[in-house]
């Protein structure tokens, strides 16, 4: 049986932990709000981009050749997987969810006899995947120092990806990230980046004037310029979703931790009080029986 002092110490330490988890939860909540705002602010751009892209592919699709980033290399042998996770832990199952999803995908590809290359973004994903596939990781990037994910971070990634593509290092590129559904639900998602799937835009979004557009310079040149940009936008969006998801997961994980610490404090309090009462009773009995003996 633990002594009163031990119980007291234990309770104090759990209280200190609870304060920390509570603070982390509040920090995550504030960051989540900011991340959601950033994701929202980025939406108009990607929407417009999709519309423009749809218009222009329509114009180009009649006969002329599309850029390689869109058509791919025509092969399907070497896969590059860009796995985007967070740089920090303590976010529940957030990082391991993405990693598990990616791992299943990798195993499937390897079983089909494909060559797999991995590009990890974020420290945690790298840590997890390194255990099993350390020889497959060709590139890694950490965004630990970055306070607010900017477009330049996404550009850095897409530049590298395009460089590798132009050097013929892979045929298909897939991006893994976590889609932010709500604070308590983040869904790991795979999105194919190269060859770019033609954007699905419903007819109402594309302008009816599409056919009448004049292009300056030509449609091909614009498309050549637009596809890499679109790639960056996709990556940027994924990174933003990831940040929001990470903060959401962290918030609910820390909320759970705070609640568990509260339960634990209650339990410790009860056993502390019981033990103190037992000790008082014992002392009383000793005094009384001592007095009776006289």
């Amino acid at each position: 049986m633990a002594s009163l002092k031990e119980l007291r110490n234990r309770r104090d330490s759990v209280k200190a932990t609870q304060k920390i988890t509570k603070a982390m939860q509040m920090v995550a909540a504030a960051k989540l709000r900011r991340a959601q705002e950033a994701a929202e602010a980025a939406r108009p751009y990607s929407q417009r981009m999709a519309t423009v892209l749809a218009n222009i592919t329509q114009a180009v699709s009649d006969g002329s050749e599309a850029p390689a980033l869109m058509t791919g290399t025509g092969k399907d042998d070497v896969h590059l997987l860009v796995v985007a996770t967070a740089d920090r832990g303590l976010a529940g199952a957030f990082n391991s969810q993405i990693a598990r999803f990616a791992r299943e995908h990798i195993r499937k590809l390897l079983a089909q006899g494909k060559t797999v290359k991995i590009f990890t973004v974020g420290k945690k994903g790298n840590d997890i995947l390194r255990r099993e596939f350390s020889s497959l990781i060709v590139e890694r990037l950490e965004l630990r120092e970055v306070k607010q994910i900017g477009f330049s971070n996404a550009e850095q990634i897409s530049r590298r990806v395009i460089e590798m593509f132009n050097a013929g290092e892979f045929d298909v590129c897939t991006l893994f990230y976590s889609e932010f559904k709500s604070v308590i639900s983040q869904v790991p998602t795979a999105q194919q980046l190269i060859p770019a799937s033609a954007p699905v835009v419903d007819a109402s979004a594309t302008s009816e004037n599409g056919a009448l557009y004049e292009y300056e310079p030509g449609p091909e040149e614009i498309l050549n310029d637009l596809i890499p940009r679109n790639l960056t936008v996709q990556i940027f969006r994924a990174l933003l979703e990831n940040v929001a998801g990470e903060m959401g997961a962290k918030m609910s994980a820390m909320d759970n931790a705070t609640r568990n610490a509260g339960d634990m404090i209650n339990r410790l309090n009860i056993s502390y009080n019981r033990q103190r009462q037992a000790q008082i009773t014992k002392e009383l009995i000793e005094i009384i029986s001592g007095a009776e003996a006289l």
Partner: protein
Amino acid sequence: MAEPYKFELVSPERLLVSESVESIVIPATEGEMTVMANHSPVMTTIKPGIVTIKTASGKEDRYVVYGGFADILPDACTLLAESATHIDALNKADIMARVERARADVGSAPDDHARTRAEEFLHHLSALSDAV
């Protein structure tokens, strides 16, 4: 008095401008162009330069953009800029850093085509940095 129409300046990070304007001057790759209402539909790439906006209320505003696209329709114009800043918030050091980066790109271009493009970009950028 020219007819007003809707203009939007969007960067990947946020929507910078969304208002009713009278005319705007876009630094298109093939030369500057002034866009007013009922312009025929044009899609053009833009070079680094200054966008001048004249709002419907007659106010003039200027933004610096670094490459992107303009999607022009008779009743609307959307400018998708890679990155954009209001002229007042402009930072000289930022432009210099971009010029440096563009210069490095020219050096590391894999083929002639890419080099020409990088050189063009650098040229526009230096012209811009001289202008401000």
